[in-house]
């Protein structure tokens, strides 16, 4: 009933044959009606599956991605308990205490060198922001006040955070305001405005910062962090969107903030 060559014809269709076998298989199909039909059917099945199958282009939900990233972070923390404990125990001590005595001294010197030479790697602020962003993507953590109205979101911050950031809806530019949230870091209740851009969530953190300077824009674990400041408020937008889009929102908010401040 079935042509003995059918498996080889299938392999030809799947691109599994070398040039010589492929030519042989082509020649066979030219003379075999059954295998010609088979080839046609294989093509139709493939087209149907790739075009019409709803699950063919499903991607992993953002919350799952965040969950995995977090579990990998935890895994890494478990992996390196020695390094973590040394950094922790080092920090609260005055650095001169053992600075000139033997091994501890060189360990501290190495620690200082590490901090000075690689500030981008060890800045706890970046870690805090990234953790806050990833945590917000987990179920039920994204939004405290759900609203697409800036007049609802902004007053809500007055009772829940220490700062009153710029809140606006840039729906026309593709950034839809979806709500706000309070987060605690840098020893204060920071305000977080949440925007949606396509399938991406953008968290815009803001907190009062009296120090000079600003962290540099950076990418960590695949998330982009863009910083800017208006007056003494520092803003940071975090998302897995493309840089252009994130910086676009940053620019819009910065312009608006500067205008309001005048």
């Amino acid at each position, binding site marked *: 009933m079935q042509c003995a060559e*059918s*498996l080889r014809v*299938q*392999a030809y269709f*799947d*691109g*599994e044959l070398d040039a010589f076998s492929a030519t042989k298989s082509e020649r066979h199909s030219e003379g075999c009606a059954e295998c010609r039909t088979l080839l046609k*059917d*294989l093509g*139709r*099945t*493939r*087209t*149907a*599956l*790739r*075009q*019409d*199958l*709803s*699950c*063919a*282009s*499903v*991607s*992993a*939900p*953002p*919350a*799952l*991605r965040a*969950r*995995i990233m977090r*579990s*990998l972070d935890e*895994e*890494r923390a478990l992996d*390196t308990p020695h390094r973590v404990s040394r950094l922790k125990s080092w920090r609260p001590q005055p650095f001169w205490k053992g600075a000139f005595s033997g091994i501890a001294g060189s360990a501290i010197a190495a620690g200082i060198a590490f901090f000075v030479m690689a500030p981008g*790697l060890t800045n706890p602020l970046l870690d805090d922001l990234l953790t806050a962003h990833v945590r917000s*993507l*987990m*179920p*039920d*953590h*994204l*939004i405290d006040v*759900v609203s697409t109205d800036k007049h609802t979101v902004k007053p809500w911050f007055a009772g829940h955070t220490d700062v009153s950031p710029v809140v606006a809806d840039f729906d026309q530019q593709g950034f*839809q305001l*979806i709500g706000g949230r309070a987060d605690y870091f840098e020893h204060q209740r920071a305000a977080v405005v949440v925007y*949606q851009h396509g*399938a991406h*969530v953008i968290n815009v953190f803001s907190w009062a910062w009296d120090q000079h300077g600003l962290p540099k824009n950076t990418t*960590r*674990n*695949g998330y982009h962090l863009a910083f800017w400041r208006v007056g003494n408020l520092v803003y940071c937008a975090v998302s897995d969107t493309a840089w252009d889009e994130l910086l676009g929102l940053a620019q819009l908010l910065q312009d608006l903030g500067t205008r309001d401040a005048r």
Partner: protein
Amino acid sequence: MDDRRQRFDTLVMPHLDAAYRFARWLSRSPDDADDVVQEAFLRAFRGFDSLRGSDVKAWLLTIVKNCHLTALKQQQRRVFVPLPEEHDVDDGEAMIATTPAPESTSVRRDEERTLDRLLSTLRDEHREVLVLREIEEMDYREIAAVTNVPIGTVMSRLARARAALKAGWLNETDGEPHAVR
């Protein structure tokens, strides 16, 4: 971030979508698929140093498959106590998904439904090879690695899966020969 983690993010994370789709096909429940994929990535990270060569996708999907089998065994052993169902609308993910899923707006909705159903009627080992070949576009050698069977078995399973799908489709459309596009 350390070197190992960075390499993992660069090499393995891009295959998250494929791992998720494969887990969805295996477990047929989104929640189970989530757990399987998370466990698989954890195992992959722990065993990352043992990865040789560039066949990352096949390596990862093999781990997904193993995690699925482990989860299946545990489920069968456990007495099942249902928990009260949570409302989907309270889910953070549901909250941000304000646009309709692309598939619901597709004009090919009927074909989609028929195909989804037909595929779900296939035997597990047939559906598996078909999905790996047609959706994930893996070659025979990679499929053999993931499913842990010889290449010859991959070929015969593929042939049967494709024939069954075609037969099912003809059946659905009253034997109209050109229904499968």
